């Protein structure tokens, strides 16, 4: 009951005219950003975060969360119409969405994607509302040792479940953490890593500089390269009758949608995992659960419903650890978390006590964002298809300009713009060699939180590192993290053991 009254208060916050307007604007912008090939929620949130200093923090984060939400819906549009995923979170949607569009069933795929997103979103927000307060209550007992253990767990998730090249993933984490250490040493106050005695380094490297560099400039360079050829937009005719038919057809896909919603939500909660693995896993499970797995990849409507439900559910799920524990559940929430720190909202369990209005306002705004995203999505499908035809030579320079101004605004120092440019170019060159970039962005956000947590713990324990293992909660989190870190190693050993055996048989 208490939760319901808190949620009611949240709705009062979310229904304030400014906040409501921001939700709707955020959803619309998110849909556009998601629909543009190459740009996803993380790019939109990183590039637009500096623009949100105009409104109060609650409004700003409601706006960014709405973009996150809208982008999950929008991603499906270019996946289906172009066969190019609108964002990495919508990769799984192309597998069956594109074949359906080529068969002339684009409208059916688009409606199913929107409806599945809505169901996934709704289920996950209800779960979120129920889970968040008890989790925050437990997290109130957390000290610096537990916080540090959780951050180790977030990095371990990348290594154990990320699926990228292990040394390159680790490298990306390390470089992000080192870059976050530039500036003044927080404990002794001494300057450190001031490269070439350039004064701009004294205020440290803001996470936005790296995030906009990689997700703005780097991403556009990447898209310029990959979209060099012509794109082919499918036709979609949408009438009211076909809309109703599309919704009737949802019955066939309800199993996959529900499975995707729950799976996506729980994958989303895992630190650092996010919506991309969530939707890919949902696609895989839907395929194995299906009576007719061979039809997947050739235009099975369930192959659209499951990943779309999952990516929306995961985006909500990934906000749970961000709000309750202060650990982002996805790259986008890592940037949101960094934004909250700038706005003076210290993420973590205390948020539920000290800024209850903000937390519940945000949760309530997710309900509203979910509703508006589906309405805007279905009513403006023709408009979004028009967006896909917008030439990239107009979009690219405008996004570059937004990046430059966005990189300048927080510190008002051109030094940061140059750094952002360098990060963008180097990030692009490294990404071409399969270096994952998300761990570095997560690391630069978590670095300034992880280092004090570690050093404070060590000061408390008189310098004994056993503090991370002796406290029950910290200890168990550390054990899980270590297992995740060693997971790839087990695979290597298993592979090495089975190789000679199979070799001798052959």
């Amino acid at each position: 009951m208490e939760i319901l009254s808190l949620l009611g208060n949240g709705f009062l916050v979310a229904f304030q005219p400014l906040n409501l307007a921001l939700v709707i604007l955020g959803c619309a912008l998110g849909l556009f950003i998601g629909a543009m090939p190459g740009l996803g929620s993380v790019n939109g949130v990183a590039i637009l975060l500096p623009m949100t200093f105009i409104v109060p923090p609650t409004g700003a984060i409601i706006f960014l969360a709405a973009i996150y939400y809208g982008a999950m819906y929008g991603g499906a549009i270019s996946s289906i119409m172009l066969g190019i995923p609108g964002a990495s979170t919508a990769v799984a949607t192309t597998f069956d969405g594109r074949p359906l569009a080529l068969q002339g069933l684009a409208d059916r795929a688009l409606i199913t994607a929107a409806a599945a997103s809505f169901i996934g979103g709704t289920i996950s927000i209800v779960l979120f509302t129920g889970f968040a307060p008890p989790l925050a209550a437990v997290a109130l007992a957390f000290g610096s040792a537990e916080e540090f253990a959780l951050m180790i767990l977030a990095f371990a998730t990348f290594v154990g479940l990320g699926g990228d090249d292990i040394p390159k993933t680790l490298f990306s984490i390390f470089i992000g953490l080192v870059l976050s250490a530039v500036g003044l040493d927080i404990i002794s106050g001494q300057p450190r890593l001031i490269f070439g005695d350039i004064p701009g380094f004294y205020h440290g490297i803001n996470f936005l500089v790296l995030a906009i560099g990689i997700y703005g400039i780097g991403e556009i360079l990447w898209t310029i390269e990959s979209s060099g050829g012509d794109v082919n937009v499918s036709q979609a005719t949408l009438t009211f009758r076909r809309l109703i038919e599309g919704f009737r057809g949802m019955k066939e896909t309800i199993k996959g949608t529900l499975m995707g919603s729950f799976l996506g939500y729980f994958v989303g909660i895992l630190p650092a995992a996010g919506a991309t693995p969530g939707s890919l896993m949902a696609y895989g499970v839907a395929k194995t659960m299906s009576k007719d797995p061979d039809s997947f990849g050739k235009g099975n409507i369930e192959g659209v419903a499951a990943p779309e439900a999952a990516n929306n559910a995961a985006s909500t799920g990934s906000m749970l650890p961000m709000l309750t524990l202060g650990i982002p559940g996805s790259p986008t929430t890592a940037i949101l978390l960094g934004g909250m720190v700038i706005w003076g909202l210290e993420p973590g369990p205390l948020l539920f006590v000290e800024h209850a209005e903000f937390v519940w306002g945000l949760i309530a705004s997710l309900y509203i964002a979910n509703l508006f995203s589906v309405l805007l999505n279905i009513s403006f499908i023709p408009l979004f298809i028009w967006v896909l035809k917008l030439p990239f030579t107009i979009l690219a320079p405008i996004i570059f300009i937004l990046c430059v101004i966005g990189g300048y605004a927080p510190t008002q120092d051109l030094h940061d713009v140059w750094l952002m440019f360098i990060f963008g170019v180097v990030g692009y060159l490294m990404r071409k060699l399969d270096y994952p970039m998300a761990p570095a962005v997560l690391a630069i956000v978590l670095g300034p939180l992880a280092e004090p947590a570690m050093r404070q713990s060590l000061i408390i324990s008189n310098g004994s590192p056993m503090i991370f293992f002796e406290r029950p909660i910290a200890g168990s989190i550390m054990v899980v993290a270590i297992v995740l870190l060693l997971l790839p190693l087990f695979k290597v050993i298993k592979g090495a053991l089975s190789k000679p055996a199979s070799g001798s048989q052959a």
Partner: protein
Amino acid sequence: MRLAELVMAVVMAIFSVYLMWKSAELPIGWIPREGPGGGAWPFWLATGMLVCCIAIIVRWIRRTSPPSRSSEPYMDKTTIKLFVVGAGSLGVMIAAIHIIGVYFAVPLFLLFYMRYVGRHQWITTAALASATPIVSFLFFEIVLRITLPKGYSEPLFYPLYDFFF
């Protein structure tokens, strides 16, 4: 691709060593009863970077990572051209901001990019190149009160300041 993989790993290894050396300006050892010194955190992380680079180089020698096996070029001619034009014009624009300020660098950049790269019509190009600085001035300087860098073009804005503030 194979050469690029090695070059990147070596460059990053050198960068790691530089970071380690730079971190060592502060105590990197263990201060008794307090824990690590101020430079220890970045020092050991940079060491971690170096270890990763060595691992990448080892995998390059053994040809276990996909880029070290790939015979495709890292960047073909078209890609190099797109990259140089894209990143280059952006770099020139940032440099120009120092001298002529945002409100002149931005339209020039749009003019170049849309006309030379995009081959858009003059009317589209001109509309966007003139609208963008006006919108950004109203949004940033007036609404957000963030002064964007103007370089030597600053005096031109005095009448506008008088008008709005």
